[in-house]
């Protein structure tokens, strides 16, 4: 899965590393700002 992504990133190793970091950061931001706020009020963790 990660090898597949790595092969599709453009440029040399430095460029690919930068792209990968950007991609991971985007996923983390999406999780933190959208997915987790939604999940935290739909999972029964500390219901009251």
């Amino acid at each position, binding site marked *: *899965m*990660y*090898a597949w992504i790595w092969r599709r990133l453009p440029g040399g190793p430095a460029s690919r590393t930068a792209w990968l970091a950007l991609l991971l950061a985007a996923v*983390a931001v999406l*999780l*933190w700002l959208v997915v*987790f*706020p939604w*999940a*935290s*009020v*739909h999972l*029964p*963790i*500390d*219901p*009251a």
Partner: protein
Amino acid sequence: MRPYLRVTGESLVTFGVIVALFMAYMFWGTAERASDAQRRFASELGSQFASGLSLALLGRPGRLALGQPFAFIRIPSFGRHWRFAIVQGTGLSQLALGPGHVPGTQRPGQRGNFAVAGHRVTAGNPFWNVPRLRGGDLVYIDTAAGTYTYRITGRPARVPPGDTAMLAPVPGRPGERPQRRRITLITCDPAWSGTSRVVATGVLIGQAARPARAEG
């Protein structure tokens, strides 16, 4: 076989990282979200109380919209600066922003039972210390009408999650006619679980009207 193993392994590691990130969100993210909301509520209530606008809403049950803040709760034994805005409703999306008033229970100062539920953990851990309340501890509720002082009557009780009797106008005795004005604070126990609830009860011992604002 190898590719399947690799994909499975990568998926598991990815899942583990996401779960770890989610735990971090539960600790810090929810606290940040709640404190942002609390800051907003505090300024909203401050101007509302100063203008006296919400006086008309008091004593008229059913008029508060879900998620609307209408009072502050202060408990000095939790710390001198411990204060949260109470919102209407106890759904998880309301409790994510602050302690919530249980719909259908009385308003602050009314005869009967003013019930407030709050998170033990997450969302700034508002009710973390509720199980440590003791008889004699004071709870202040600030509304547009003034400040109500309740005194906790004893050690908090542990009840099953479905037990709604403690929300009755006379806690523990549904259907009975209330004589006293009470408060009930509810939170989860043990922390991080929905196994049971901890309930602390108090009675109204005083109230002070908000000083009338000079017109002009």
